[in-house]
């Protein structure tokens, strides 16, 4: 019924005035650096991810959940990774995996939805912002891009919220089919600012669709086999978009199920295993495509969990937790310091690294963005410039 063609109707209250079209080169393959944000939804248990196996307080706090010295993948003489994370050990040996310990923020909030909002808007815990931190940071640096970033596993664009170009893209092919039905309005402005906004957005949508369409067809099939899990499929899509050269700066993927209040051991092991398998495949695919030096993976989660186990073989909502960064430009190794298990704040771990310091390291060193809206931040050294 509809075909994509320019159409302009002048008249009425929403009179349209033609403007010179702004040209953007969307099809050009881009060597842009891409951050892949991995949301560990539900609040990942940090203490059983990066395990302080040598601290006697650990086993005391978690008599039935503690992982033993023999099980963990030792990173040094004090801490080790959960055994399910063994697929990540190649990147650890290659010094491409940074483990940042004790990440959190002041006056922690223990509500899932509020705390993830704090992480995604990068505000103080008593401040609210409508825009996500990536939307703010990338604003001036993603001009000319059809979309600064996409969310692959969730209808929420999270840290890209507020950028009208941010897309959710569960399935690129379905997205392309859906946009094919839309017509393209001309580059025109109206005295009606709401209409101008709707039309500009519709054009942006078609630009994004073009940009994805032009590259997606040409992408050679990935040589690497991705696991057939939800997170595996999302990272496979991410790998296709990035290796195909779709101009993007950020990709958000979602790995859910970390709210382990009960019977945590088996479930947590399975979740971390799925994560590690998918990330290991993603790394290989990016190395194959020679995009690994331009790619950075970073995990985040609304909170860690309480230091002590609860009565249901699980853990409740807590505060600080470790986070992982992976990539060709990542400075591998242990960063920060493990939170004390004896100096707790009401049963919760005290953070040593503000999560916004980690973000600022990514914006400033990885992308070279100085005005990122994150304010004055402590300097970390997680990324090689």
């Amino acid at each position, binding site marked *: 019924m*509809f075909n994509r063609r320019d*159409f*302009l*109707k002048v*008249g*009425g*209250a*929403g009179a*349209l005035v033609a403007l010179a079209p702004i040209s953007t080169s969307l099809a050009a393959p881009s060597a842009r650096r891409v951050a892949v944000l991995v949301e560990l939804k539900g609040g990942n248990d940090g203490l059983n991810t990066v395990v302080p196996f040598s601290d006697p307080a650990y086993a005391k706090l978690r008599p039935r959940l503690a992982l033993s010295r023999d099980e963990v993948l030792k990173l040094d003489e004090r801490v080790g990774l959960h055994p399910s994370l063994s697929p990540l050990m190649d990147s650890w040996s290659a010094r491409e995996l940074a483990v940042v310990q004790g990440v959190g923020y002041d006056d922690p909030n223990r*509500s899932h*939805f*509020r705390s993830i*909002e704090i992480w995604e808007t990068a505000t103080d815990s*008593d401040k*609210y912002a*409508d825009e996500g931190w990536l939307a703010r940071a990338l604003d001036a640096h993603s001009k000319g891009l059809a*979309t600064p970033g996409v969310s692959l596993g969730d*209808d929420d*664009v999270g840290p890209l919220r*507020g*950028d*009208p*170009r*941010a*897309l*959710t893209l569960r399935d690129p092919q379905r*997205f392309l089919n*859906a*946009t094919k*039905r*839309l*017509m393209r*309005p001309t580059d025109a402005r109206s*005295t*009606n*600012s*709401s*209409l101008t*906004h*709707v*039309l500009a*957005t*519709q054009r*942006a*949508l078609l630009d*994004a669709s073009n940009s994805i369409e032009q590259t997606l067809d040409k992408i050679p099939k990935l040589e690497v086999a991705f696991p057939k899990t939800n997170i595996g499929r999302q990272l496979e899509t991410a790998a296709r978009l990035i290796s195909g050269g779709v101009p993007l700066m950020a990709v958000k993927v979602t790995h859910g199920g970390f709210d382990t209040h*009960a019977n945590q051991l088996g479930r947590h092991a399975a979740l971390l295993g799925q994560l590690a398998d998918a990330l290991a495949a993603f790394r290989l695919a990016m190395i194959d495509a020679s995009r690994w030096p331009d790619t950075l993976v970073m995990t985040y989660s609304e909170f860690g969990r309480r230091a002590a186990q609860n*009565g*249901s073989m699980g853990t409740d909502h807590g505060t600080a937790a470790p986070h992982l960064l992976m990539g060709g430009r990542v400075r591998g190794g242990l960063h920060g310091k493990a939170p004390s298990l004896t100096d707790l704040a009401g049963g919760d771990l005290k953070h040593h690294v503000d999560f916004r310091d980690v973000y600022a390291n990514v914006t400033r060193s990885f992308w070279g963005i100085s005005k990122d809206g994150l304010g004055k931040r402590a300097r970390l050294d997680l990324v090689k410039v």
Partner: protein
Amino acid sequence: MSTGYDRARHLLCRTGFGPTHAEIVRASKLAPRDVVSHLLKHARTSATLAPPSWSSEVPLLLARRAKIKMASGKKEKQRLRKQSNAIAATRGLELKGWWYAEMTRTDSPLTELMTLFWHNHFTSSLKAVKSPVLLYRQNVTLRAHALGNFRTLLRAVVRDPAMIVYLDNRTNRKRKPNENFARELLELFTLGEGHYTEKDIKEAARAFTGWHIDRKTGGFRVNARQHDAGQKTFMGKTGALDGDDVVDTILANPRASEYVTERLWRAFVSPTPDAKAVTRLAKVLRDADYELAPLMAALLTSPEMLDPAQAGSLIKSPVQLIVGTLKLFQIVPESSKVLTAAGRRLGQDLFDPPNVKGWPGGEAWITTDTLLARQHLLSRFFRQPENAPQLAERGWPAMLGDGFKGNPVAALQRLMLPIEPVFGEPGGGGPFASARHFALDPAYQLF
């Protein structure tokens, strides 16, 4: 002077959902003043539909806590917790569906739009409060005062149990005040940033200490032991102030009337409040001792509102788009879950605003992502004629009435769109195809 078709359509779109041709014709013959006074005079203060079956139960969050505490054994506690979470989730969905149904069927759409306005002003969410009963009760309160008196409404809100839970006033105690509620009361509900000091927040928080909820009934209760009855100084007023004194002191500041008027302007008139007009209208609110109906009458009949250039100057919220389309075309959704899922997908999950600031609205409604979702939803509504059986069976008369003479496509366009379509007229096809064409035009996103 009679309102005329286009202005009547404009007024009814701004005060309701998807007005029909017959409703517009009726209003077009009256003067704008009479259209508005009719709307205000017949505005309901309660819903037409029966409340959800569980609405009079004791709020789950309280009953649950007691029951879980009493339960013996971890397994049993865990089972009970799971069970009550599942009940809350089901009821939450029912509540959302209930409001969609009320908005679609009510004979007083202005009441629902105002209730939605207050829901976005005095925000609370199911996600945070975790009690569908309390959110339902809050909805009843907001509806009861939606077009009543702002002072009465505010006094009800500071006693509203869902609000007390949402903004942590339950933990606002004499020895350890929690400032969350006081801060939002000043910043978001009444004055806006820059019109109070940090000291005012601290003093207001003290005035609301002990304003808690009754564990047995889930109703409001002042816990005298936790209330700080000492002397406070709030915005220049000194005394043993309590919550109502704080409310009255705020409302004595003309800024409060301007703040509320500005918010109403953005929702009902245009994206950019006219400073002079706001000053003029805020005085109407103050002169009526904060009665909202005179303000709304003045706002809706203001020259700025009735200016023909104002047609289509606002972007429909997801709820307006969904409910308006359902109502105008008498589309019967497969289930209310379709609507709640659609609202969420389009960025407006009823009873679950993103945070205490509510939905930013305006241009923020339309992103590449939500625009595609809007178009997708509209094409689903218009996928097959059976979705709109009235239109499919009766054809043009279903939209334009039996006695209609003239060009029906042009009349349908005038009914559906506030401005000229961006993509022109439909290239042939009957009533259903024409309706579909106009619904997918970008101009349909505006009202």
